[in-house]
């Protein structure tokens, strides 16, 4: 198990009820991590509708995780 730092934006922040949290996981990739987190918080957005960034760099969903990574899930937003 590793621990990553999660940050949420927009709808995800609202659905998670927090803008960030520490998360212990055995997920092998970002995609698996999102499925795991999404199941816990009831995220309505599919991963394909989002961008994901790790340690302030956009990343591929297949990227493996390392202990201490900061992971940010970013949905598109439309408000103006």
């Amino acid at each position, binding site marked *: 198990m590793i621990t990553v730092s999660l*940050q949420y*934006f*927009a*709808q995800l*922040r*609202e659905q998670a009820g927090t*803008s*960030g949290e520490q998360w212990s996981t055995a997920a092998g990739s970002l995609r698996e991590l999102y499925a795991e987190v999404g199941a816990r918080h009831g995220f309505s*957005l599919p991963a394909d*509708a989002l*961008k994901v*960034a790790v340690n*302030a*760099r*956009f990343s*591929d969903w297949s990227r493996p995780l390392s202990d201490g990574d900061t992971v*940010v899930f*970013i*949905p*598109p*937003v*439309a*408000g*103006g």
Partner: protein
Amino acid sequence: MSRFELSGAPADLDALREALQHPGSGGFCTFEGWVRDSNEGRDVDGLDYEAYDDLARAEGDLIIEEAIARYGVTDARCMHRTGSLQVGDLAVWVGVAAAHRDEAFRACRYIIDEIKHRLPIWKKEHYLDGDTAWVACTHVHREHEHEHDHIHHDRTGPPLAPDYSRQTRLREVGEAGQARLAAARVLVIGAGGLGCPVLSYLAGAGVGALGVVDGDRLDASNLHRQTIYDARDVGELKAELAKRRIAALNPTVAVQTWTEPLHAGNIAEVFAEFDLVVECTDDMRSRYLSNDAAILTGTPLILASVYQYEGQLQVVSAKPGAPCLRCLWPEEPAPGVAGSCVESGVLGPVPGVLGAMQAAEALKILLDLPRQADDLLLLYNLLDHTSQRLPIDAAAGCASHGGCIEVARRAMASAQDRADLSIRFENLVDALSAGFSLVDVRDPDEIAADPLGAPARQTPASQVVDHADEFAGERLLLICSSGRRSDHAARLLREKGTRNVHSLAGGLKALRRAPNLITQGSD
């Protein structure tokens, strides 16, 4: 062209009035000054006006220009008599045409007060007792100097010319930068929460020409974040209100307005007229369309959007090899996926902050100020002041689908193909008289609960394609409650080769928003 006229003989008032007729004007206000039979207790028989001709004409024109800029009226004219006049004769005439009556009244008042105060015109009164006297035409009360509650401007005389010294003092700006701004043309799409600060800062900075695109009318729910509007403006077109606000803030800015959203058929042409576009709508479709048009025309685009307490900012430079919106999120998200201010709420200053950042980016580009080297997505959360500065790797985006230009070209072509798919009608009777056969694609229980009230075939959206053969040769209008299912079904039918099929834009809801639109048999 001179709007001010000095006339030695009675003027043709019909011609003056006609010169002000304009289809955009909803209000026309005139003031007439007549020769009165008494002044300060003495009986007056008549008078002579004498003017310092050249100066009076120049000053008269200037006053009218000031009034037009100050109140945003369509046009104005003034005629002042010279020579001998009898009691009851017309001495001065002011006419103002404007979109609305309020500005017309106020501009009219401004012109007559300033004329009386500033014009080098003297009058010699002839009294019944045979005496005469020259009367000075000064010291009048100028009502507009006492307007506290409306447009705030300087209190003495004409509005000051813009003073850009606070920005030209910046070494990187200077007079050369100011000249660049004066020559710049910027299009702002959306005059809402983001658009308000963008328009204010760009107009204040002296950007020479601003285009404003907004099809909406001001709603009371806009006022907590859309800071250039007044409560009494509710119901007015935002593009027109913004134009007036800009004229009041900086009369030197030329403003062009679009009161319908841009579409695939005209957007590239419009973008090509501008140096830079700032996308400030709350509409995903507009954002993607703007992105594609920016890429195809090589016009830099500044995107921002907000959600509750946070916002996103992205500058699409439209330079070869630089990333675009589709490099991040390739397709426009399905309706409802991206939150809107209506559904999710927004704290007023959030679009204010992001809009101010857009304005800063615009000025940085126009002035060629030092800026970040990499292409970024910026995320700001105003609750906890966290921000993310995420470099966008162009190689990981559209590059794998032929590059941004190819992706944008395909998207624009398909948007153009869809352009005539949905058609707006005010009511269904119009659709029937235009020769359409109506197809209600709602489910039977929806139809039972809310009958269409017009002759229509009933085929649920999911089964429309199976019935394609029955529709051959007809001009079809598919109808559902919101326009979404009918759009989708019409697209599927077209793919199956049924060409003459359309969808009612906005669905039944769009009809019912306005009164008296569904006619016979309506619920």
